[in-house]
């Protein structure tokens, strides 16, 4: 089946089975390898993209369900002011260890900051707990989100 989807502002046509998840259309049909396959079950968040600005798991979203929605991937998120700020914060805080989950983390973090300019630690926990980081860079992801939000990056959670 042929589907035309809007990816990072450009209409792109993919020829795939109807049940093909958006993730595989992006990765293998459109050669956008930034969104990652982690679990295929919507549990790890490595495949997170935005659909009309909302963070969704592309590994469990059939391409046939995307319709005319706007899909934004890690390759395109830097074009938005928030996305660029989040990417810069990720570098400034030196979040990355292996880096495999970080595209998904950045997409979830950008969605959070688009809706909530000054997130609390609890807000960060709630928005980010669907994204696994096997290297456990969580302390730095938290700091980078605060950095991008212009908040102090010190961990202020009570001890």
């Amino acid at each position, binding site marked *: 089946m042929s589907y035309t989807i809007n990816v990072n502002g450009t209409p792109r046509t993919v020829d795939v089975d109807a049940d093909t998840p958006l993730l595989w259309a992006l990765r293998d049909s459109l050669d956008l390898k930034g969104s990652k396959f982690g679990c295929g*079950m919507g549990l790890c968040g490595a495949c997170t993209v935005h659909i009309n600005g909302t963070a969704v798991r592309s590994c469990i979203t059939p391409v046939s369900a995307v319709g005319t929605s706007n899909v934004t991937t890690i390759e395109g998120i830097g074009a938005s002011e928030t996305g660029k700020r989040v990417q810069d914060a990720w570098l*400034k805080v030196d979040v*990355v260890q292996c*880096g*495999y989950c970080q595209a998904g983390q950045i997409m979830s973090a950008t969605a959070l900051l688009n809706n909530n300019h000054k997130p609390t630690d609890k807000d960060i926990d709630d928005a980010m707990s669907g994204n696994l*980081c*096997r290297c*456990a860079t969580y302390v730095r992801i938290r700091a980078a989100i605060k950095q991008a939000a212009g908040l102090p990056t010190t961990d202020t959670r009570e*001890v």
Partner: protein
Amino acid sequence: MATATKPETGADAAVSRRAFLTVSAAAGGGMLLALSLAEDAEAAISSSGSVAEAHPNETAINAYVTISADNTITIMSKVPEIGQGIKTSLPMVIADELDADWNTVHVVQAPLDPKLYGAQFAGGSFSTPMNWDALRRAGAAARAMLITAAALKWRIPESDLSTSQGKVIAKDGRSLTYGQLAADAARVVPPDIKNLALKIPSNFSVVGKSIGGVDSPKVVTGQPLFGIDVSVPGMRYAVFQKCPVFGGKVVSANVDEIKARPGILNVFLIQPESPTGLPDGMAMGLQSGVAIVASSWWQANKALESLKVVWDEGPVASQSSAGFAAKAQELSTQAPHKVIRTDGDPKGALAGAAKVIEAAYSYPFVAHSPLEPMNSTASFTNGKLEMWSPTQNPGAGKTLVAKVCGISEDAVTIHMTRCGGGFGRRLGSDFMAEAALIAKLQGEPVKLVWNRNQDLQHEFYRPGGFHYFKAGLDANGQLIAFTDHYVGYANGPKASNSSDLAATEFPAKYVKNLELATSTMQLGVPTGPMRAPGSNAHAFVFQSFLDEVAHATGKDPLQHLIDLFAEERAAPPPPTPAGKGPPGRGGGPGFPMGPPFSGKRAQDVLEMVRDTSGWGKRQLPKGTGMGVAFYYSHLGYFAEVVQATVLPEDGTVKVDKVWVVGDVGSVIINPTGALNQCQGAALDGISQALGQQITINRGRVAQTFPEYPLMRMYQAAQVQVDFKITPFSPTGLGEPALPPVIPALCNAIFAATGKRIRHLPIDTTLLKT
């Protein structure tokens, strides 16, 4: 190698390397300095290409350093990057001695070429101790050649020249950039690397500075870097289904039905005659199974839902975790199979002790679960195999795939890609063997990707184990006797991979009357190294039981640990450079040995963590406690304190904060990377303790991915990391921060609740009040 989207691999560097070799040979054995770092320099030179192949504006000074006319300095990173930050930190070491301007440095993954680069693998936290000295010399040698080139050009003595930020500067103020000197420098006879003057630490210009990961700009913008991102023209996609029971074999499958599904190109039943390597995780090779090749990975994976296989499950189907637990209990009441250490008279001392403490501990099998599933891309054409693999162990992988395809290793090219996590899993090469054979059978390039449940259920695992401890105290509360009967696993006469207990396991040597003994149960489930192998399990049991002992003596647990090392305090061993001393823990045949274990270094990190954590000085609410543990592994000394709160209503454990103090020698090469490793290792250990468990049921893994809880954001505590700087050669940080955090957490739970955690993962239902 034309690829549509190709992660950066050693192939990028091949042109420069050929140039280097030729220039060096032309210069009359000029390749000496790379050779001294390699095993067989002569062979490397004889395989050189021609100058004409080189980019005209690039000059290779040696195997690690290439300088362009525009002053870009390309530095090779020799070992695989798995998230440990080595692709940044080792090039920093070269750049520092080279006196390069880091802003002009471009790091490239070196090709797999052990003749040129020596050992190329990521494991054992060895990369830093094995390469620190050699790579400093590689950088210093290149710098010396640039100085010589400038001296010849200006006809002034080398002693009138200095270097800074990628320039050679004369006393009279003249300067030339490295780019301007590179072509001449490549024709200079390289210096004797043994006699190079290396910098004193106060002159380090790159080492010791926090430098972000060299690939991070690509990571945050989603550029292809990882094995799974490789794309080769004409590539097909594959999945490979093995028997749920380890070692089981395919008898038949509904091949025609699968072939009729959309996109399916081929179905292969793979029934290798050669040994599968099971159950040694490091030796795991090709196993029996069904390969499905399709036009897209989704179609191949989807076909698994319709796949019906008749399996011969084989003998491992009779094994289960419950059976092993019962057997271990039975063995614990019998004489151990083997006594591996006896000091003094442990039995007599226990019999005469004023107080005897006994406890049984156990821990489960654990999976590595790196987030990037096992995968490899392979192309087999005209008897030659080319592979792109996220591997920690490319050399072993190369040997294996050559064997599986029936070709010589010379006909195999392995490209190391960035790895989406390793943790030891990618030291095995089973996934490479599968991709290689499927590509050969298909006759087209194939990318094999395991799905997540296959990845969890066909790993090799951190072996579980059972420990039965006794400790004896005299009338003064002093620890006078200590015994452990460890019931672990074996494959024939050999302990299962990574289930060894060392005869040096602490507190051996520090308790007068001590026995370490082992018994084993035959295991068919594959096991192997996982981040801090052995240590990640033994730290939990030994450091938890020693905490029990401390409480029994009435001493502060942190002071109790310090006092155990008291004998050595008076006469600490002298500093010895790594690699020069007698065998220390963490080494092995062919691996660097550190200086002998130092009780003084152990005491010092314990004392430092007492200060950083406010140990004994903080007023904690009811239900909150602090625990401490110390562990020495991979040549690193780590003392850690955990503060944890246990919720009385449901026993939920909340880790509030972790304080880490480590001693890894004289230099923290890249502080931001070092902190990242320690923070990650501490949280990794907590994640294991809180929920990770692989249960074997009828020879297969009982859990699926949703039943294998990995730590998430809301569970991630603050981690404060401090380093104790000591005059020893620097050592690695991928692993040693992990082991002590688990017992520190369990000891904190005891402090909070009075309940002792003796089995992992932590059963919170036991903590309800």
